[in-house]
């Protein structure tokens, strides 16, 4: 039987032959078949794409909105009480791992208060309400570190921009502090913030894997972890690249 499987997977061929076959298949759009599920890897990924995309895009949205406003607020009143609180929050948010935040949220908001379901996922096709309800806790858990990160970057680049000459000019010509912050400063700081958000996307994906495990969300992260535990190399190979 082992001989048969080896023959079927082509493991008896020399290494270069195996490698060339793999590259050729990939160029043809054949990304291999899962050893464990016996189905094409692309099909498995397609099935699991929705939860992961939902979770990560929702997290992006929430964290950019909250993170940028926190950072702006902190820079506006630099070294005031608001700034102190927000800086402390961002140091803390950086330090608490996403799965610990996740279990705290589950315990207090799902198990004690019964406001939201403990875990699982409902596709958006089954109603927007159920979809949001299942995604609230994972999104919050995943967002905490990300909000802290974005707030920190926003604050630093806002402070840099606020000390520029043209900000003094804007103040001199009598611009309101609202106009100064949002029209003059944030637009210029935005370039730097966007760059950093883009770079840290890889960081977000690492958190997605953990969050999906905590909340039992059948997404790509779970697929990768299961693939590793089952030694399902074709699946792992495609997911990682």
């Amino acid at each position, binding site marked *: 039987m082992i001989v048969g499987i080896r023959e079927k997977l082509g493991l008896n061929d020399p290494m270069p032959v195996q490698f060339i076959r793999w590259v050729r298949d990939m160029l043809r759009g054949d990304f291999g078949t899962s050893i464990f599920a016996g189905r094409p890897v692309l099909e498995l990924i397609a099935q699991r794409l929705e939860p992961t995309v939902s979770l990560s895009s929702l997290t992006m949205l929430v964290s950019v909105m909250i993170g940028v406003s926190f950072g702006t607020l902190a820079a506006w009143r630099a070294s005031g009480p608001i700034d102190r609180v927000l800086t402390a929050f961002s140091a803390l948010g950086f330090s608490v791992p996403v*799965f610990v935040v996740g279990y705290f949220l589950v315990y207090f908001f799902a198990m004690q208060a019964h406001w939201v379901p403990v875990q699982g996922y409902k596709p958006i096709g089954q109603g927007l309400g159920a979809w949001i309800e299942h995604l609230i806790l994972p999104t919050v858990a995943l967002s905490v570190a990300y909000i802290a990160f974005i707030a920190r970057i926003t604050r630093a680049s806002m402070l840099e921009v606020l000390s520029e000459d043209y900000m003094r000019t804007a103040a001199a010509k009598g611009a309101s502090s609202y106009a100064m912050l949002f029209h003059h400063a944030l637009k210029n700081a935005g370039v730097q913030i966007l760059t950093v958000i883009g770079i840290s996307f890889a960081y977000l*994906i690492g958190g997605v*894997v953990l969050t999906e495990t905590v909340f039992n969300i059948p997404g790509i992260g779970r697929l990768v972890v299961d693939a590793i535990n089952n030694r399902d190399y074709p699946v792992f190979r495609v997911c990682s690249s």
Partner: protein
Amino acid sequence: MIGGGLLMLLIVLALAAPIYAGDPVNMDPFKRLQPPSAEMWFGSDNLGRDVFARTIFGARISLMVGLLSAACAALVGLLIGVVAGYSRSFDNVVMRIMDGLMSIPTILLAIALISLTGPGIGILIVAIAIPETPAVARLVRSVVLGVRERPYVEAALCGGARLPKVLWRHILPSTVPALMVQGATVCASAILTEAGLSFLGVGVPPEIPSWGNMIASSRLYLAIAPMTIFAPGICLAVTVLAVNLLGDGLRDLFDPRAKRRR
């Protein structure tokens, strides 16, 4: 410097664990999932093991893996960074590889490395250090690029000093402040990665208590015995916070300009 003090305290507590913490692996089937009591401060887990003892012993693994990975990453990154900052051809090749490594999520890269050999503490440290190395190398390289044009380096070279000596005596010391700040960041992230990997079941082997695998093995019992998850979770957060604060403190120390801006 609160961070440094807190970290020292944690290290001492972890090192002294055998003196006061009790047995972390002894199972007692009759005392499963007990609430916190005078005998067992944090209660017991699903196999009747003392959660307090396991948490304290878990600190040893977390700190050891975190510090050693950070040290490995800092050392290798320093080496690559210094050479890349000085040699153009090496720079082009190696920094592109580093860029490639940086684009892979840390946890996935570590999992892939571990799946090559199977779980173990040694491979875990290497697997965590490799994804962290590029950031260090990049930073060191940028410092070296700035320093190599300075007059004192040119003077040393003109004075007949050999290149290795110039690198060692004149260029290496100027990278130290940046390296220490980055080292703290790397250490914090290494502790988080270790916990994440152990939580996913690919990190520290289950027979050794670590914060990550404690949380993983207790996840089904969150409703009955929340302390089994909260105790290691809070310790993890406090440790990483201490390291992060230490990093911030070091940055303020070495770069007073940044402090005024903050």
